[in-house]
């Protein structure tokens, strides 16, 4: 091979490489195989339209994944990509949804199959009601008690101070303007 052939061959090889690279970068829809697919996590299925359906997501957010992750089905299937349970539960939800079941019917079906523990928010019935109302009731009752005690104490103090500010009838002691203001204010507070 002479120098001319070598030069032409090199230019040709470079041009081919560049063209190939351009093809790769511009080709829409390319799906070249990965060098080592085993280190890229579990193989994924193509996303179906119902995977993004808000109604499906809402249902899945009410149900706990049973893999032990403590997450809801939607969060688990879109977070823990090693989990095989949440995609299966998702397929169940989609199947029931496609059968025309309502959200509540789908949730009921899951409860019938997996028990009450699959609900992320226990139903507000029976003993569970205690879970919902006790913190709020305790806070409310304590606040009401504090408020009641403080109001009573305030009224008692006003009642105790008012006679002291008023001279006994017939003593003939005149009130100063400041004392009269204080008395008016105390009486107004008492009446309110």
């Amino acid at each position: 091979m002479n120098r001319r052939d070598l030069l032409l061959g090199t230019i040709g090889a470079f041009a081919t490489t560049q063209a190939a690279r351009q093809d790769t970068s511009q080709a829409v829809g390319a799906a070249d195989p990965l060098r080592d697919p085993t280190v890229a996590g579990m193989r994924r299925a193509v996303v179906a339209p119902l995977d993004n359906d808000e109604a499906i997501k809402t249902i899945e957010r009410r149900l706990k994944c049973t893999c032990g992750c403590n997450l809801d089905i939607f969060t688990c299937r879109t977070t823990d990509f090693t989990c095989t349970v949440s995609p299966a539960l998702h397929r169940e939800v989609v199947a029931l949804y496609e059968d025309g079941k309502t959200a509540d019917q789908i949730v009921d079906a899951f409860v019938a199959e997996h028990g009450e523990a699959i609900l992320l928010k226990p139903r507000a019935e029976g003993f569970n009601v205690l879970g919902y109302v006790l913190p709020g009731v305790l806070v409310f009752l304590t606040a009401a008690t504090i408020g009641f005690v403080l109001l009573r104490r305030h009224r008692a103090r006003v009642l105790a101070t008012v006679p002291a500010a008023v001279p006994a009838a017939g003593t003939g002691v005149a009130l100063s303007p400041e004392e009269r203001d204080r008395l008016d204010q105390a009486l107004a507070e008492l009446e309110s």
Partner: protein
Amino acid sequence: MTLLGQFALWSALLLGIWVMAVAFLPAWRARPDAQATVSRSCYAIAIALWVAAVSLWKSLFIHDFNVEYVASYTSRNLPDYYLFSAFWAGQKGSLLFWVLVLATFAAIAQATTSRRYRDLLPAVGGVTSAVIVFFLSVMLFSGSGNPFERLSFTPADGQGLNPQLQNPGMVIHPPMLYLGYISITIPFAFAIAALVTRRVDVGWVVAIRRWTLLSWLFLSVGITLGMWWAYVELGWGGYWAWDPVENASLLPWLTMTAFLHSVMIQEKRGMLKRWNLGLVVASFLLSIFGTFITRSGVIASVHSFTQSNIGYFFVAFLLLAGTISFALLYLRWPDLAPEGQLDSLASREAAFLFNNLILVGIAFSVLWGTLFPILSEAVRGTKITVGPPFFNQVNVPLGLALLALTGIGPLIAWRQTSVANLGRQFVFPLAVGLGVAILLLVLGMRDGYALMALGLGGFVAGTVSQEFFRGARARQRIHGEAVWLALARLVSRNRRRYGGYIVHTAILVYFVGFSGMAFVVTKETTLRVGEKVEIKSPFGHTYTLTHLGVSQYDALNRRVSAASLELYRDGRRVGVIASEKRQHVDSFGKPTFQPSTEVGIRSDLREDLYLVYAGSVDGTERSTFRITINPLVWWVWAGGVLLVLGGLITMWPSGWVPPSPVPARRSSREPEAVEVAVVA
């Protein structure tokens, strides 16, 4: 090194028992040298535990895989900073870390406590040593807590560190949370010492002021860093999942926050002594409860260590510590009678009391929700789940009430406020709050809770800015200072008060961030190289992402598959965003864990674009992604920074004050002058 470590642990255990005996046996406690003995023994315990800690760190760094703990949590190709953090990656190491920090804090408390409170120190040393002895007993006698246990063989390489722990956040987050949990022991020890010695005046409260703030600050930083770690590492796109262990960290934070407020009433009015002691005891017990939750396996959590029998030790300790503490409180009940009375509903004391009520109410509801599944199973025999929807339903209204009180408290004077004064104080903050709510309503926001959170945020912002404005204006009027100088001096001379207001601002900034979670948008998609996907944000932007391809390469201890997407916002190129799958390997190239995911985040003031590479289709570059728009997340981290700033200002020791042009005699009265001007 492990022999030395074992020896150090046993030495610390015996020293701890010795300190307890000196501190609590009446005959020994009465000796004049008891205090010095306790102090020196506390220093010796700290030194012994540092020897044990250095022994473990050395074993980790020299890859002594004959040590079971080293083999379980490290590998030869683990970067040095993760070798360092592997100390607290497992149960055994974290127990040693706990006891190490506690011994160090106990020694510092002995060394730095003012002479005025020295008579409390023997009992303080006794309590801290009792807790140290408990943790050392768990390590040495439970059979699953000793980090120096050896294997019968030496593996060629260790199992490596869980990929989720290989994150910079995990180098800082657990120690911060531990520092918060552990430092609560010091206020608790002072509280018990006050009860034991019958010195239940305001002295112990003053002695622990810095410790309570420090503890609260560490807990706050630890919780916020935990939220950040969950956000960037776990890949589900949120930062708080009401996980039992997250809840356990929140519980002592809530009771400590309540204490930081109610202790002011004790200092100013001599009231709520019993309540404050109860809060400190509760905070300590809740910090131990958090440790129990993480380690017992009694409640399922993503954070749990390997299940073991040490849960029983913690239950026994919780019962014992609770019984002794509340029995002491009961015995001293008559000594703790209040010196004053709450005068009025319209007083700052009452506002603080309601603030305490809400904080403790939230703590109770979180604890209640965390334990309710166990209770339900015990009562009904039915397993139930209490997840985020339950906690949100119960706690969001309480949280909003707390936010409102954050704005109300500073507007009300101590003892009593007249109606006219209330009117003057509330007009501006209420106008700001209503203005924000109406503006957002007009702009189309319809989520009720988010509207309330942002409206109340406006109210709190109005309160805080009014306080700063009035204080600075008073200084300007009195001293003729420039506005920035007046503000700087206002803060530096009233650090506790204005540092507290900065913390209040941080809380409102957090709430702004939390409100963004009501508007999250998520989309899953599968893209071939060159294909695009669009997603609309709640702020009306359109993001376009084009799949550029997946590159695979080897890094130090992992094989990486990185998917890159070109990002456009409203047609303008923003940059390239990448998300990775990581397969961690040991030094022989053998996979150690399941592949993990590293998310890609593009963040700004308004919203985060959060990209997760879910995996490849049929082993090709065609990939599935989850794209999420998380509004206002930046504000959560900003709230964390502001909170640390406010906390540091509040606890910063007195000393440096910006030079004042006025004579010293007059400047010594300035705080009162400003205080009066502001309250008036």
